[in-house]
């Protein structure tokens, strides 16, 4: 795990994509499977005539939340405390991890079961707790699989979408004692069910994420298909729920809007199997909520990028992204991959994630499917400018940009370059179809046109008027 993370700081998106692209068959499967999920999303979305109004309402609710967050945070805190829930505040990842550790130590617990929480991935909680002698077992099936493999999730909704069932069979054989070469999803899931049921029944502490927290009532909602968040929380002696401060919504009725949008966008289901509303603790079993900032207030202050905080983590932008589908989640070397991750990560560390806003074709498909109408592709474009100005642009890009800038600013240089390019593609394709040209990787160069538009126009431009 550690070496994995060290690797990720030295390799950028392009290099990591290249690794993923070595297995062409797998890339094609990954691409087609995610596109299939995108199509399921389209199918169910088109059944709702009010879909666009729902997106607009969700966007406006979230914009209201971000504009009045100071008030909503305090309202939520007061109502949660009145409900008998403990509320903690963490300024950054380190404080969040320390708080969780402290709560577990106070409860005398050394083993914890955790349901999906991208925030704890962002904070590196599992590694931190492991260093402090606390064992964490992820209970979402996909997360358990990547945990056994010593990897991070590659997709926020489908954590092990990059893995083939045979590899999962090998992992289960090694760690769970299933027969070798067992690769049937039904049988593997059954084995995981038995394994994790034992975990649920024996772990005294459970941590869950939070999908939505309601300021008006102090309750929070956790959505799963597997039922793992509930199994963990209802069998433990202490329930810790970690949430980013942007997860708030004003009133309970707003859940109607978000629960209709979330799973339709994510997987094409009408709703998750379980949408559980935690308001008051069970008798004698404390609930602790940790409200985490970790850069969110900084993003709130960036006018061009604050809308990224509207995100409800459905993953639709990943499923539709032509780059994500062909480069895989690990190529983004951050907890939240894909288009949304690429506009969130530079806020946390502009230098480390300088490559991510460039990992896009700016086609805009992400913005079109986003259920809360985040202008993702526009923010990607804006981040590029911020990153270049700050001097963090990837080196290859900077050199190319300088040549491009000189060429485009001089008509003579532009015409000569165009002619030269067409000549090279026609007469010496090997000069560009080689390893030195990153564009040629995984692609073929196009057929060159016989003349430029400028040359064509000179020949044909006046003809229409003559007639």
């Amino acid at each position: 795990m550690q070496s994995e993370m060290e690797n990720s700081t030295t390799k950028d998106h392009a290099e990591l994509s290249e690794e993923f692209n070595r297995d062409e068959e797998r890339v094609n499967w990954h691409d087609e499977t995610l596109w299939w999920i995108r199509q399921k999303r389209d199918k169910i979305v088109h059944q709702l005539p009010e879909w666009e109004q729902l997106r607009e309402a969700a966007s406006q609710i979230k914009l209201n939340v971000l504009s009045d967050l100071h008030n909503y945070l305090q309202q939520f805190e007061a109502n949660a405390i009145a409900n008998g829930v403990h509320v903690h505040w963490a300024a950054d990842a380190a404080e969040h991890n320390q708080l969780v550790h402290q709560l577990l130590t106070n409860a005398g617990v050394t083993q914890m079961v955790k349901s999906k929480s991208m925030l704890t991935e962002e904070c590196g909680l599992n590694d931190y707790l492991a260093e402090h002698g606390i064992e964490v077992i992820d209970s979402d099936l996909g997360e358990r699989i990547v945990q056994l493999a010593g990897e991070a999730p590659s997709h926020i909704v489908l954590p092990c979408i990059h893995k083939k069932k045979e590899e999962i069979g090998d992992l289960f054989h090694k760690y769970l004692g299933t027969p070798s070469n067992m690769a049937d999803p039904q049988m593997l899931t059954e084995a995981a069910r038995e394994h994790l049921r034992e975990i649920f029944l024996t772990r005294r502490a459970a941590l869950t994420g939070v999908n939505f927290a309601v300021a008006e009532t102090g309750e929070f909602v956790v959505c799963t298909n597997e039922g793992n968040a509930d199994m963990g929380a209802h069998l433990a002696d202490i329930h810790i729920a970690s949430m980013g401060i942007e997860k708030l919504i004003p009133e309970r009725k707003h859940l109607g809007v978000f629960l209709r949008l979330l799973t339709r966008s994510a997987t094409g289901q009408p709703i998750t199997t379980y949408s559980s509303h935690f308001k008051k603790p069970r008798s004698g079993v404390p609930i602790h909520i940790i409200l985490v900032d970790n850069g969110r207030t900084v993003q709130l202050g960036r006018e061009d990028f604050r809308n990224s905080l509207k995100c409800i983590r459905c993953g639709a932008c990943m499923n539709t992204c032509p780059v994500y589908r062909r480069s895989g989640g690990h190529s983004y070397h951050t907890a939240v991959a894909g288009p949304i991750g690429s506009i969130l990560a530079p806020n946390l560390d502009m230098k480390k994630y300088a490559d991510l806003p460039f990992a896009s074709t700016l086609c805009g498909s992400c913005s079109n499917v986003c259920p809360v109408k985040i202008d993702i592709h526009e923010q990607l474009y804006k981040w590029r400018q911020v990153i270049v100005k700050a001097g963090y642009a990837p080196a290859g890009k900077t050199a190319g940009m300088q040549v491009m800038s000189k060429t485009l600013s001089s008509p003579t240089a532009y015409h000569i370059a165009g002619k030269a390019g067409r000549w090279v593609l026609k007469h010496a394709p090997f000069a560009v179809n080689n390893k030195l040209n990153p564009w040629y990787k995984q692609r073929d160069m196009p057929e060159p046109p016989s003349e430029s538009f400028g040359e064509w126009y000179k020949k044909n431009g006046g003809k229409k008027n003559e007639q």
Partner: protein
Amino acid sequence: MSSREKILAAVAQNQPAKLQLPDVNLFETGTEGSLENFIKVLSAIGGKAYSINDLSEIDSIITDDIGIRGRVVNLVEGLNLTNAEEIITDTVVHHLHNVEMAVVKASLGVAENGAVWVTEENMNQRVLPFICQHLAVVVHQKDLVPTMHDAYKQIDQMPGYNYGSFIAGPSKTADIEQSLVIGAHGPRSMIVFVLK
């Protein structure tokens, strides 16, 4: 300065000028939920619905049609089931792990997504509808609503809850190569009895 004060101060400084909330009440339909849609959607997500005229029809469906054998916990008032426990006497909730079927009441059902709303009051122990191997739910047909907006409108008018969950079908996962598998950690099947 505590982290709470630090975060709140940063939020106050960085949040933009206040924007208004949209009116979401216009999404409420105020109509009844369609039984036909509810059954159709629930079936599509792996659940099963029975439309019944009387609670007495349930016993034979569970024992004969579905063939449930083993520990059954029935928490539905007015429903008599052969060999079922009607109160939970386990002092430790973990002992519920051998429950074959739990039968609970839902206060409403949602036609657009096949979900039923079950509160702690009706499940006694929160873990019950998750830890059982099979889940059966009874809901009145008059309590079906078309959409989630109507559902929350109804919930507003009901007594408060400590915990509640929308449950839509059996537990499931598609984490392994996107192959749908029913029965992840929770129930392997879900039946909803819609009472006329």
